[in-house]
């Protein structure tokens, strides 16, 4: 058991090796986001119609934006630990730029009224702390958040952002400027100033920085943000010349309103629009040929939309003797030959398989040929109804594919026709799938996924076809033998009521409502340690069942069901009595002697374990052995089985197992 987790890691690495794309290409595939937040008088004004009971609605737009940045920073430390983030305030009375760097003469004066609050970098604990101070401590905020009396030059703001990206995030594949403002017409009176801003925006475009605008309107003041006045000169789109071009989805975010309408505060709406753009959309595979039929190829991109987010693994930390600031030690691996410990170039390495006590080796070319099953492709072999796909036929998360016109013009319409047809008829395609060069081919089901939108019309899951690698015969395990006792109808009827009572909202599972408790706890602790705060004591766990509700809504029915079960089981026992002969190991006899623990009202007393006579010891038996100090006489196999039933670790020598059992009872004593 203990090595299963190691095994899992090895497994992953193996996969990884295969999945690391050599074509990764030129750029660092990282993301850098710089928030540029407007600090003007109107941005600092709290909304008039705020609801004092909801502190959310009391925030000025600037503070709301800062809160939003704070939330994003915390979230990205968890979800994108190597991505960068920075915060630039503009229009402030104070000015501040990157520290030091005297050489190039960059001082604070160069960008007046631009205040670089957090330089663009992977966030440090201090950055989180500083930002939190600002959003939580009004005094600190009051000191810094003062609007300048003269208008800040937008050209300067944009060039300042340019410099930040140039120096801090060179060669990043994704660099984005999140611009939060309520001023749709800066430099209203100066055409020149607007033009130089446009020039600086072009610089950013040429640098590869995308500007994402988060406009804010003030309905309470009768003000609606109008992009066409200024910002359309600043923001670039991929295909501007075609008015019929599909609008990039990121642009369909409506201006956030500073006042709470429909109960949605500015903060919430900012949070949701930032959240929807927080992850740069990185394709897992670009331009995968999708062969709909022989002679009909289109191209698709594949995306990972669902991926298990794991806590970070431990890293090595260096504690310098002369300072209390721990450092991260960066590890690097080199291959060395076992015989001489000389380092080895990748090209020298040969692969060999262990076989019969020796190794069987192949040349690199041979192995490449052996593993070659053709170029990357997603090829449809035929179609089946979705009902032929058993629910258990799964191995790992699915990937979404979405059409791309880059290789084949017309891909989108063909894809769309297929998507609509499969959705309409609830069909799936069976496909031969080689995701990347030299990857193992798999058979995959291509299943259609409909677009899902929230009640507010925000897209939650995009439409597309999902690729689901199917298990091979080798991957399917046999189901264990069981001794089936089918439920009689009255019992099923009793259970049905319970099921009907306890539907989840809308009868669906909404992942957004269930944060991962271990992960959240891990990062809360880590954050507390990093910020040198008190460690919180009570974890919040939203995945726990709502016991009180279950009790209220279904408790009565469960008790009824328990009675029916007792009744029906007695009848079944009577009917089957004559067939049941006590087996040699006495398992059947024991079943009668001790009441089975299935049933309602499963209080503590009823938690009696039943094990197969061959492999088990009952709780009572184990407790007796514990009480009489006779644990050492229990067989190792029994100890292991019993401990496993309790979810305890089952590793080590017999003494360890005895210890574990002893420990278990010692702690349980207090409870009983």
């Amino acid at each position: 058991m203990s090595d299963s987790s190691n095994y899992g890691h090895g497994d992953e690495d193996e996969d990884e090796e295969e999945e690391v794309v050599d074509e990764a290409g030129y750029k660092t595939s990282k993301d850098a986001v710089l928030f540029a937040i407007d600090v003007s008088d109107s941005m600092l004004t709290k909304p008039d119609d705020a609801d004092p009971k909801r502190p959310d609605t009391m925030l000025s737009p600037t503070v709301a934006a800062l809160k939003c940045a704070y939330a994003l920073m915390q979230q990205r430390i968890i979800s994108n630990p190597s991505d960068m983030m920075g915060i630039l305030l503009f229009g402030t009375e104070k000015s501040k730029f990157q520290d030091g760097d005297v050489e190039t003469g960059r001082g604070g004066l160069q960008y007046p009224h631009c205040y670089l609050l957090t330089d663009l970098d992977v966030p440090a604990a201090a950055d989180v702390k500083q930002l939190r101070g600002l959003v939580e401590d009004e005094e600190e905020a009051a000191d810094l958040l003062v609007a300048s009396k003269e208008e800040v030059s937008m050209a300067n703001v944009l060039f300042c952002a340019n410099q930040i990206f140039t120096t801090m995030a060179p060669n990043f594949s994704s660099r984005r400027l999140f611009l939060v403002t309520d001023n749709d017409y800066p430099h209203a009176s100066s055409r020149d100033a607007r033009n130089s801003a446009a020039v600086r925006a072009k610089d950013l475009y040429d640098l590869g920085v995308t500007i994402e605008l988060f406009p804010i309107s003030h309905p309470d003041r009768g003000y609606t943000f109008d992009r066409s006045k200024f910002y359309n000169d600043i923001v670039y789109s991929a295909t501007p010349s075609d008015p019929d071009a599909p609008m990039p989805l990121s642009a369909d975010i409506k201006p956030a309103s500073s006042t709470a309408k429909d109960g949605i505060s500015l903060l919430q709406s900012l949070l949701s629009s930032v959240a929807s753009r927080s992850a740069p959309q990185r394709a897992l595979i670009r331009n995968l040929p999708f062969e709909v039929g022989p002679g009909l190829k289109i191209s698709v991109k594949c995306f990972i939309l669902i991926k298990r987010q794991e806590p970070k693994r431990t890293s090595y930390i260096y504690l310098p003797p002369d300072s209390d600031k721990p450092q991260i030690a960066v590890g690097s691996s080199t291959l060395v030959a076992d015989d001489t410990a000389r380092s080895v170039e990748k090209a020298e390495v040969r692969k060999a398989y262990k076989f019969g006590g020796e190794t069987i080796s192949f040349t690199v070319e041979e192995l490449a040929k052996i593993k070659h099953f053709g170029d990357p492709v997603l090829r449809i072999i035929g179609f089946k109804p979705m009902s032929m796909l058993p629910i258990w036929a799964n191995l790992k998360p699915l990937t979404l594919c979405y059409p791309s016109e880059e290789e084949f013009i017309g891909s989108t319409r063909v894809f769309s026709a297929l998507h609509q047809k499969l959705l309409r008829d609830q069909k799936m395609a069976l496909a031969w799938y080689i995701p990347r060069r030299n990857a193992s081919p798999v058979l995959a089901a291509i299943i259609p996924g409909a677009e899902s939108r929230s009640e507010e019309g925000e897209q939650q899951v995009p439409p597309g076809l999902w690729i689901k690698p199917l298990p091979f015969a080798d991957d399917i395990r046999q189901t264990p033998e069981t001794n089936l006792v089918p439920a009689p109808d009255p019992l099923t009827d009793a259970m049905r009521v319970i099921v009907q009572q306890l539907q989840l909202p809308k009868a669906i599972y909404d992942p957004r409502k269930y944060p991962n408790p271990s992960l959240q706890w891990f990062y809360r602790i880590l954050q507390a340690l990093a910020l040198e705060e008190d460690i919180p004591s009570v974890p919040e766990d939203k995945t726990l069942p709502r016991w009180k509700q279950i009790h209220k809504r279904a408790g009565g029915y469960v008790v009824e069901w328990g009675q029916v079960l007792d009744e029906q089981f007695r009848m079944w026992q009577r009917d089957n009595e004559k067939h049941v002969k006590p087996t040699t190991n006495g398992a059947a006899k024991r079943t009668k002697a001790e009441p089975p623990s299935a049933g309602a009202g499963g209080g503590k007393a009823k938690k009696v374990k039943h094990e197969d006579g061959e492999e088990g010891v009952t709780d009572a038996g184990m407790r007796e052995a514990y009480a009489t100090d006779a644990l050492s006489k229990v067989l190792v196999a029994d100890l292991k089985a019993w401990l496993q039933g309790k979810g305890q670790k089952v590793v080590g020598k017999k003494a360890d197992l005895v210890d574990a059992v002893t420990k278990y009872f010692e702690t349980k004593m207090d409870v009983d």
Partner: protein
Amino acid sequence: MAGKEATVYIVDCGSTMGEKSHGRSQTNLDWALEYVWDKITTTVATGRKMAFAGVVGLRTDGTENLLDNEDDYAHITVFQELGQVLMPQLRKLRQDLVVSGTDGGDAISALVIAIQMIVATCKKLQFQRRIVLVTDGRSAMQADDLGDITSKLKEDSIELVVLGVDFDDAEYGFKEEGKDATKAENEAILRQLCDDCSGVYGTLVQAVDELGVPRVKPTKPVPSYRGMLTLGNPEEYDTALAIDVERYPRTMKANPASASKFVIRSDMAAGEATQSTHTIDGEEAAPNGTNDGLAAVKTARTYQVDDENAPGGKRDVDRDELSKGYEYGRTAVHISESDQNVTLYETSPSFDILGFVNKNQYERYLDMSRSNVIVAQRTNDKASMALSSLIHALYELESYAVARLVMKQNKEPRIVLLAPNIEPDLECLYDLELPFAEDMRSYRFPPLDRVVTVSGKVLTVHRNLPNDDLQDAMSEYVDSMDLSTFGQDDAGQPAEYGAMDETYSIMLHRINQVVKHRAVYPDTDPPPPYEVLTRYSQQPSELANTAHPSLSRLIQAADVKKVPPKARGRRYGRKDAPKPLSELDVGALLAQDSKRSSKQACIDPKNAIPEFKQLLQHAEELPQLRAACAQLKAIIFDWIRHSVGDSGYGRAVEAIRVMREEMAEVSVAAAPYNEFMRELKGTMLDGGLGGERREMWYRVRVNRLGLLLAGECDGGVSEEEGRAFLSAAPVAAAAAAQ
């Protein structure tokens, strides 16, 4: 774990086995050995110490067996006593099993020897015993003692498998015409023997055919959770429901054997180490030191921390100087030994139902993990009945349950979906993990059934949307390629084509196949993959033919065109300048800027990339391109020269990339970039850019910023030259450094 097994193979090596029958290109012996080798190597591959194999040669030139002083046992040689077979034995057997010059040797006697071998080795221990006899049945047999043999086989529960070269098999549908009388008689005797001891009797062609169908390795189910499935909290309420259940894997990826890494030993010339099989270095190596010239490759890890005083700004630290911790953003968080568990979310094993969802609204793309099966605790009839009621209720209500599962103490909780399954002798719940909030990435894509335009209109007719003709054609095509009844079941009835239990893990069996093949035939090229592995790589031709008319119609309606390879020969300065949403002519604004507009404009190092790109917009002649590149070159050199450690490398790499991309686009302009690149390499590696800059060169290499190739740009260099340019240097540099 798998039990012990002992198999003796009796291989007929008589002179008649040297014939090539029925137009086969191999001798009968080679053909028979295909089967035998496959079986033996399969056993070898398991690496199990208690999987014994023995090999007895029948009709061999020599005689060597326990009873070899008796005439009846002549021409029978025990080549391999029962034991674990490893490579040396395999190599020896390869030389032993050759066609002999004799016809003498009695198959029945060989059976007796085999039985004795098994009896001597296995005694009364728990072994799975088997004898496999492969023969062409062309030599006389003494069938007098068959009764004794039968009863001995039965008594010791030894399974007998007889495979005959061109034996008749009505069931398989093979009949050899013009069979000689001895063979016919022997076939009858062997068939009778197999019938008597409930053995297996078959013709070799069937056995060899079936080698192409991979065997699936059964795995003993090991429960991943044993305990209560609860609804409600039994600790707090007396209305909670609890059922004893066990959870077993339902799907689990079977991975192909992984290769280990080796290098040629440094004391060996390359040519000496090319033989195909090798002894693993180390304990198992033959004592006389005959090894394969390969040394294992290990991974050595080194650690560095920033240190202002160290050359290059980094300093190596010993593993012993380090302690454990985590990274929070870029902050190191040290966690002392005693606090190791502080980040652990403490849990205890539990399996709680959260509620129920509608099956028809469940989106299959939420499936996150491999699946498991949940059954009632075995031998607990009441739990079985209780779970059955839940399964039936879910089934009847078309519902699934959602539950929170903690498999073991302090394992992280997972949310799983529970789906009911009802079969005549199996009722269970299947479970699959579901995503948490953090696991969902909110990517957005435009709808596929309508187009919302920049101007806000919603279109239903658009070049990205299928017209009715395309929709119809697609619908017809999908229907015509239906696989649900295209396959056949065992009874020949229409069944699902490509069902999961008929598909085999491609890489796993492919690797097994070639490794086994190479172990026996070290000097032969690997064979092509089994047909069954590539069967599903194409549409089944019969169905594809039927569907061809609908496909043609679809292709016509789709009107898909391949994007031509990058439109070549863009004249510089003619590229459509990108415009902002408002289509403001920024180019004109730039032109007004006196610093930027002139053709000899000077690139501001602080804004180098945008200005370089803008300069190229106006560049009309090659000299101007060169001039732009020269300016950027000076800036890049400057960055590298003044870089403290690697601080300037990122910007330099970016600028080099941009220059490369821009020059690649202007098709005649490989020269400026390649000249730059050569100069960069020369100057930098000679220490001309502020000292030791190998790290920077490394970055150029990994970012593939080498010379422009002929394939990328007219005037580019050949691939070999490009490769040589990138790879040659570090060796020289490394040599220089030492």
